[in-house]
């Protein structure tokens, strides 16, 4: 009797979280519907002009902006974090390992506005001094994002490296390969799937990041022409204008959210497919 109640209770609780998720999706889609209806899907997705005052609601610059910033952030973060994970797991002594862990955890726990402030106060002026212009650039935004996703990739890659069976490593060493050869030919290939999922998770985080990016990216709704252009991402577009938007402008921000949501869903599906189809 008692057990049945607990079971039902837990079932209700789990249904509840799924229900909230569905409600959010329905809400976003319903709110965005008038925008797609009045402006047209292709005008929203492929329009290159965002000027709500004049009736232009194209979000292509923001889609490209989000993708470009994320790609550059990954280019910076992947070598740094995988290198870091390999060092911690394979080379560092125990006391260094115990030192690294809390530091990386702290890095993950710093609120994004602090990263944004750091970017605004330190990286933006450096970028301006070196490259001229306003200093609000894709480069700075990507660097800030890269720092923010480092902990995710590092800790997940550490797990990946850890989970390579020790027999493989020992056999490789026993056969006479050096430590470096073992890492290169046994550990990394074996861990590569999990590392890929780590990267995709980080990608999701990077695309979703808002506050820090608003502070350093310049938020110009134009298709960027170089890595030193300012950029506006999908999330910044929503956060910047939601406070005051009314009517179709408001709905078009929800349309932006739908696009963002779809991108993140696709990433999640890819990471799940990788994990289940080829996962170890």
């Amino acid at each position: 009797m008692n057990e049945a109640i607990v079971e039902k209770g837990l079932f209700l609780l789990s249904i509840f979280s799924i229900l909230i998720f569905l409600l959010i999706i329905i809400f976003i889609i319903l709110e965005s519907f008038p925008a797609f209806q009045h402006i047209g899907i292709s005008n929203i997705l492929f329009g290159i002009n965002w000027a709500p005052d004049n009736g232009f609601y194209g979000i292509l610059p923001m889609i490209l902006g989000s993708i470009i910033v994320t790609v550059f952030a990954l280019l910076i973060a992947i070598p740094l974090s995988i290198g870091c994970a390999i060092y911690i797991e394979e080379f560092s002594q125990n006391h260094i390992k115990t030192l690294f862990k809390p530091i990386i955890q702290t890095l993950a726990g710093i609120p994004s506005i602090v990263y944004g402030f750091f970017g605004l106060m330190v990286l933006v002026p450096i970028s301006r001094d070196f490259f001229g212009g306003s200093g609000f650039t894709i480069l700075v935004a990507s660097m800030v994002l890269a720092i923010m996703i480092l902990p995710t990739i590092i800790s997940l890659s550490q797990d990946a490296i850890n989970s390579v069976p020790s027999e493989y490593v020992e056999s490789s060493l026993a056969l006479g390969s050096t430590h470096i050869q073992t890492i290169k030919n046994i550990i990394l290939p074996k861990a590569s799937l999990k590392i890929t999922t780590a990267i995709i998770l980080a990608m999701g985080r990077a695309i979703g990041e808002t506050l820090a990016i608003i502070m350093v990216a310049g938020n110009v709704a134009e298709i960027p022409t170089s890595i030193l252009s300012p950029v506006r991402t999908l999330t910044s577009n929503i956060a910047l204008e939601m406070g005051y938007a009314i009517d179709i402008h408001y709905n078009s921000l929800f349309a932006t959210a739908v696009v963002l949501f779809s991108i993140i869903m696709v990433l999640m599906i890819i990471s799940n497919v990788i994990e289940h189809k080829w996962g170890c």
Partner: protein
Amino acid sequence: MDKKYFILALILIIGVILSQNHPHSIEINMVGSTSVQPVCEQLAQAYMETHPNITINIQGGGSNFGIKSLRNEIAEMGMCSMELENNYNLTTYELGHEGIVIAVNPANNVTNLTDYQLQQIYSGNITNWQEVGGVNKTITVLTREEGSGTLNAFKKLIMNGSDITQNAIVLNSQGSLKQAISQNPDAIGFVPYSYLDNGVNAVAINGIYPTMDSIANGSYILQRPFLLLTNSEINNQTQDFLNWLNSSEATFIINQNRIVRSF
């Protein structure tokens, strides 16, 4: 088991009692412009100290939201930071005027711009400081996000219907905009008068610097009113609060926020 429930119920009851610390308090709701919000919060706090039976709730959302809330009678007062185009039978109380300062980096040697030059800079036709008497450097134009009240006031007063250049860097708060100007010798931007400090320099518009006097007598053109709106029928508590705004205590707070009362 019974004891547990008893304790839980006790906690709930105590919580409910504690959360009603003024059992007979009367609420006044103020909704509207986020620019007017900070000074209203300070005013409300001071007012509530001397009037413990009144609770003033303040919420942002923008001037238009304030007007809407008044008309739907979900608020007693609306905060508005722009000239009303249609007064909807609302009663207006003027809190004062806020100057909008055109700010540049202290290293910038440009001290005066005409309103036409300003319009040309913001519409992207003037792109180099040399064209307005400065050094040969590209102007970094900073602006606020679409919908910001300060941006709307700026557009209305300066832009004459033309659009802000697409190259303008968009920042989402007065604070970060001022920060960006204080770091960048080539930047130009607009911030409320109360944000003016040593980090940035104010530029004179048509030869007139923003000061308390020039804003009060209207010779400094970049300014907007801070209004409190009420419905034509008004309850005693709200009327008392509006009367209190003329007291020396309220005037002190308003002055401290560098909101200028016209004479």
